[in-house]
C-alpha cells in the first residue's frame, strides 16, 4: 500500500474533502479512502493531487510510511538549531 500525506497537506491548506474531490474530479468518499490509506491512486490521480498542492508527487506519496508529524517537526527544529549554531 502507498503511504500518503494528503490529510496533512489538505488540512494545512484549509481545503475540505469535498473541494479537493472536485478539484481532482473524484467522489469525496474517494478522498477519505485515500487519506485512510485503504485505496492507492492511479498515477494520473496522484499527479493531479500533487498538482493541486503544488508539491512534487514524492512529497505526497511514498512506498515507505511517512514519519509522524511530531517527529518531522522535531527534526525540522533540530535542523534549524543546527543551522543557527553554525552561523
Amino acid at each position: 500500500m502507498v503511504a500518503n500525506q494528503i490529510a496533512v497537506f489538505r488540512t494545512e491548506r484549509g481545503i475540505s474533502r469535498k473541494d479537493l474531490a472536485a478539484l481532482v474530479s473524484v467522489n469525496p468518499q474517494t478522498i477519505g479512502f485515500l487519506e485512510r490509506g485503504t485505496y492507492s491512486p492511479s498515477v494520473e490521480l496522484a499527479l493531479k493531487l500533487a498538482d493541486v498542492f503544488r508539491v512534487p508527487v514524492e512529497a505526497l506519496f511514498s512506498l515507505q510510511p511517512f514519519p509522524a508529524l511530531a517527529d518531522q517537526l522535531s527534526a525540522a527544529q533540530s535542523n534549524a538549531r543546527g543551522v543557527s549554531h553554525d552561523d
Partner: protein
Amino acid sequence: MTTDTHEPNKPSRFKYILLKPRSAKALSAVSIAAMWLWFLLKLHLTDEQTGVQALVGLCALIGLIGCIVMFLCTYNFVANAPASQLDERELADRNAAYFKAYQYAVILLLVGYLGTDFLARLFDFQVTPSVTQNFFLLGFMTVLITPATILAWRDEDLG
C-alpha cells in the same frame, strides 16, 4: 482508467435509497439468507406442515422485499451506473464486485446442477419443475443484488 469524465454528485444518485454501509450489510445478509432458507425449506415442505408453510412464506416475503430494497439502494447505483459517472476507485471496486458476483453465479449453477440432485437423493424428494422454478427465482434474486452486496461489504463504516 480515467477520472476526467467524472461528475460528482450527479442528481441521478438521489433516485436511489441511501443506505449506510452497516444497514446495507445487514439487509443484504438477511435478504440472501432468507431467500436460501425459503428455497431449502420449500424443498421438504408438505401440505400438513402449516407452521413451516408460514415460515417459508415469511422467508420469501423478507427475501424478496430485502432484495428489492437492495436493488434500489445507492450501492446498486454504483454497480450499474455508466462508467462516466464513477471515479477510478468506484470503477475498481465495481470490477472486483462483478468478478465476485460471477464466481457466486458459477458456484450457484454448480450447486443447482449437482447439489439439488444430491439433496434429492439424500432427503428423498423429486426435482420437479416447481423446484427448478424456485431455484431460478433464488438464483435471479440473489445474483441480481450480489454486486451491490459486495460493494456494501467492501465499504467502510465511518461511525
